[in-house]
C-alpha cells in the first residue's frame, strides 16, 4: 500500500505541476511538451489504479500519436512571436472565468462531501485492468459500442480528408 501512496503523491504533484505549466507557458511548443509530461504522469496514475492497458494506451495514443499532430500543427501554423500574443479581456474570458469558478465550486463540494483517504482497490480490479481483461469484455459485453467506434473512426477519416483537401486545393 505504501508504494502506491508514495507513487500517487509524486505522480499527482507532477501532474498538477505540468498542468499548470501547460496553461501558463506562452510558447506553444513548451505548452505541448508540458502536456506530454502530464500524459506520462496520468499513465502512472492509471498504473496505481491497476489499469495497465489504459496506462500504456495513454502513452501510445495520447503522448505518441495525438501530440505528434499537435506539434505538427503548432509548427505548421508557426505563429511567429508567440510570446507577443496577448488576450484582451472580453466577454469570452469573463464567461470562461465564470465557468471555471463554477467547476472549482463543484469540485470542492464533491471533494469535501466525501470522506478523505484512499479505499483499497477491489480484488477484481487486478484482472479487469489487463489487456486480456479488456479484450474479454470489449468483444462480448461491449461488442456493439466497439463496432460503433469503427463507424466513428470512418467518419473521422472522411471528415479529416474533406477538410484538408479543400484547403489544399484552394491554395
Amino acid at each position, binding site marked *: 500500500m505504501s508504494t502506491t501512496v508514495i507513487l500517487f503523491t509524486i505522480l499527482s504533484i507532477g501532474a498538477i505541476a505540468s498542468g499548470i505549466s501547460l496553461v501558463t507557458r506562452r510558447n506553444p*511548443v513548451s505548452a505541448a511538451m508540458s502536456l*506530454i509530461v502530464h500524459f506520462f504522469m496520468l499513465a502512472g496514475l492509471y498504473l496505481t489504479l491497476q489499469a495497465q492497458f489504459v496506462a500504456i494506451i495513454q*502513452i*501510445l495514443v495520447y503522448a505518441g500519436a495525438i501530440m505528434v499532430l499537435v506539434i505538427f500543427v503548432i509548427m505548421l501554423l508557426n505563429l511567429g512571436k508567440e510570446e507577443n500574443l496577448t488576450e484582451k479581456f472580453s466577454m469570452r474570458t469573463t464567461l470562461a472565468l465564470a465557468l471555471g469558478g463554477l467547476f472549482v465550486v463543484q469540485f470542492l463540494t464533491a471533494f469535501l462531501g466525501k470522506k478523505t483517504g484512499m479505499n483499497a482497490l477491489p480484488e477484481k480490479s487486478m484482472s479487469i485492468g489487463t489487456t486480456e481483461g479488456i479484450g474479454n469484455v470489449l468483444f462480448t459485453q461491449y461488442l456493439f459500442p466497439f463496432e460503433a467506434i469503427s463507424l466513428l473512426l470512418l467518419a473521422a477519416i472522411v471528415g479529416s480528408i474533406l477538410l484538408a483537401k479543400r484547403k489544399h486545393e484552394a491554395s
Partner: protein
Amino acid sequence: MSSIIDLILGFLSEHIDALILLAKIGLIVNGLLMAAAYLVYFERKISAWAHNRIGPNRVGPLGLFQSFADVFKLYLKEDIIPTLADKKFHFIAPIISIGVAMAVYAVIPFGDSFMVGNKEIFLSVAPGINIGLLFVLSMSSVGVYGITLAGWSSNNKYSLLGGLRSAAQMISYELSMGLSLIGVLMLAGSLDLTTIVHAQSGGKWNIFLQPLAFIIFLVASFAETNRTPFDLPEAEPELVGGYHTEYSGMKFGLFFLAEYANMVTASAMMVLLFLGGWEMPGLYEALGLPAGSPLIAAVQFGVFVAKLVPILFFFIWVRWSLPRFRYDQLMNLGWKVMLPLALANIVITGIVMTILKHYGIM
C-alpha cells in the same frame, strides 16, 4: 529478540531486491554502451570491406578501441548552440532520444529466470509485465519527439526538413509495424515478451508461422531506426546532416548512440518475436542441466546473442548495399503496400487459426 532479527532480515532482503535491480540496470546500461560501441566499430569495418578499404586500424589492435577514443573525443569537444536556436529544446532533444532508447530495455528479457539459493533472478529489469510489447512500441513513438524537437529547435532549414521527414516516416511505418505484431499476438495470446518466447518453444518460431509479418516488421524496423534504404531524415546530399546538423560534441554523440541503441532494440525485438528468443529445440534437453540453474540462463543469453548478431549484420550489410528511396516511394511503400499487406496477414491468420481450431489441430 527473534522479531528484531526478523526485522533486520526483512530489511536486508528488501535491500537485496534493490541491489539486484541496481546491478541489472548497471549491466544493461553498460552492456548497451559496449554493444553500441562495437556496433559502430563493425559498421565501419564492414563498410570498409564493402568499399575495399581497411577501416579503423590505429587505436588498439585492429582498431578495436576506436569507438572509445571517439567517445572521449566527443566529451572534449566544444558544445556549440546556434544563436537563433531555441536553447531549451535544443538541450532537451538529445536527452529525450537517448532516454527513450534506453528505457525500452526495461522490458526486454534475455533469458528465463534462474535460482540463487531460493531467490529467483530474472534476466530482465522489469519481468512479468502484462503490457511489455506495447511499452516498446509506445517508447518508440515517443522517440519521435526527440527528433522533431531537434529539427525544429535548431532553426535550420535542413534540420527542420530532416526532423519532419523523420517524424512522418516513423509514424507511417509504426502503423504497419503495429499491425504486423497482431498475428504474433494471436498465436501467443499475450503481450508479455517472455510468454511470447515460450509460445515459440519446440521450433514453432514465428518466422515460419508468420513469414509475411516478419518481412513487414523487418522493413518497418529499418524505417523506424532511420537506416538505409530509409535514411531520408539525414540524406547527406540533400539535407547535410538532417535533424542533427546543428548538434556538436556529446549532444550529437547521444543522437548517434540512440540510433544504434534503437537498432539493437529492433533486432532484439525480431529475435524475441519471430526467431524464438532464447529457444533452441533440443539444446537445453541435450545439456541435461537442472531447471533454474544459472548455467542454463547463461546458455540462453548466448543463444539470444547468437541470433541477434546476424540480424545486426544484416542491418549493416543492407546499409552499404542498397541505395536510398525517394520520399514519395517511401510513403507509398509504407501506406499503400505495407499497410494492406499487414491487414491481409491478420485476416489470413485469423481464418487459418479458426479453421485449424475447427478441425482440432490447434
